[in-house]
């Protein structure tokens, strides 16, 4: 019951934090390593 709805709420809660972490891992960290 309400599996889809629960997943939707959880996505709403964690989507941006995940994007933030991904941005850090795949964009900021490689750039920093390159600068080193």
């Amino acid at each position, binding site marked *: 019951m*309400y599996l889809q709805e629960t997943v939707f709420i959880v996505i*709403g809660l964690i989507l*941006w*934090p995940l994007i*933030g972490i991904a*941005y850090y891992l795949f964009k900021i960290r490689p750039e920093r390593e390159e600068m080193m």
Partner: protein
Amino acid sequence: MDTVLIVAILYLLLVIAVGFWAHRRGMTSWGEHEYDIGDKSVHWFPIMVSTFSTASSAFVFVGLFGMGYENGISMMWYAILATMVGPVLFWVFGERLRDMSGKFGSYTLVEFLNSRFGDKKGYLGGIGALITTIFLFFYVGGQIRAAGFQFKEFFGWPMIYGALIMGIVIIVYTFLAGFRGVVWTDTLQGLTMVGAMAALAIVGVYTIGGFEELLSQLAAQDPALVSITGGMPWASTAFTIFLAGWIASGLAGMGNPQVAVRPMGMRDSTKMKISGVTAAIIYAPTYATAVLAGTITRALVPDIAEVDAAFGVLVGELFPPIIAGIMLGGLLAAIMSTADSVLLTSSAEFIRNIYKKINPDSSSRQRLFYTRLLVTIMGVAAIYAGVYWEEYVFWFILFAWGGLGSAFLPVMAFSLFWEKITWEGAVAGVVSGFGTVVVWLGIIEPIYDFGIYEAIPGIIVSTLAILVVSKLTDPPRDVLEEIDI
């Protein structure tokens, strides 16, 4: 109730103390620039947090909360789409905005646009500052009104008492502390907001007995409350317009001068990207938890007379008075952190872009004096407007977010990334973006009732105007090459 009030007042005193502390720190290099933007030397963390607390305002606690209460889980789309404001502002625009405004020596968004186009007479700055000052004035009025309303709900006071308390606190510390103080108090307020929302959502879900129980209680009231699409079919025009509206709202946020000014004050442009990450991780979930907490309130108390009071009702339902006092502090924090920035931005825009053009020989000391004077006058007028000009305040706020966003976002974006934009194109963009929102909300929507968020046509028309007019007019002298960006 007394405990709630005492805790909330202690919180207000803490905020004033932080303002004073920042004021003392800034004393060594006290001047007009220091006041407007902290001399571009504020640490990235407070800049990031204050950007979010400025962008959030009473809207998170009152508006978004109420939307969750009324419409259910479909409002989570807001949290998914419109929260792009922070991360995207820092990731896409931040670095160039800071570098370019730094080279031009500009301290506000409108001033930046004016220097970007080498507008010596200051027409662009004048138009921009006028629009900004008028709309942001009413925006402050609306925030103060929200404060008065919450005091009324919590303590049964007349509106004017709460409005006066909050208004005076806001004026005093904006007056004393300037940008540096506002950023630091906003940081405190921002962290309080995050904590308050997270606590409400977690305790709320726990009290109800989990997501499953929450959703089935909502569904028992109205199946649309638990519909991901708000009861609309997935592949429908209505749902597409619904989603597009939230995207436009997020975009418009970045064009609001009091938000866009934030990255300009950042000391280290390499920290800009980290700020975006922090914004995504800390702040975006606050919007989502506000929606969730709104739906929790609906499940627990289905029959609230005024939706704007949903926050107070849930706090009263879930927490003992001491915690409720801190929660009220969180709400006041949201209101203040927006009102102070807006008050400061609109005063600074007016003095820098209009007064400075009328009286170019004025010293920076004089301009600081007039900025502070304007902060005081506008603040007092905003208290009055907030309490007694209800109709105008609602009307202006309705236009403010989308109107300012449509006027400035496309111009800002093209100014940063497109060399061929001309002065004429920029003026056309500001005027048409703003004008479209006014016409759309004032004339088209009342007749046709499309239900389309006004920033959608606003941003589209402004973008087209910039492109077409810039193509038709003479290419600009190469400002970008001159400053070597």
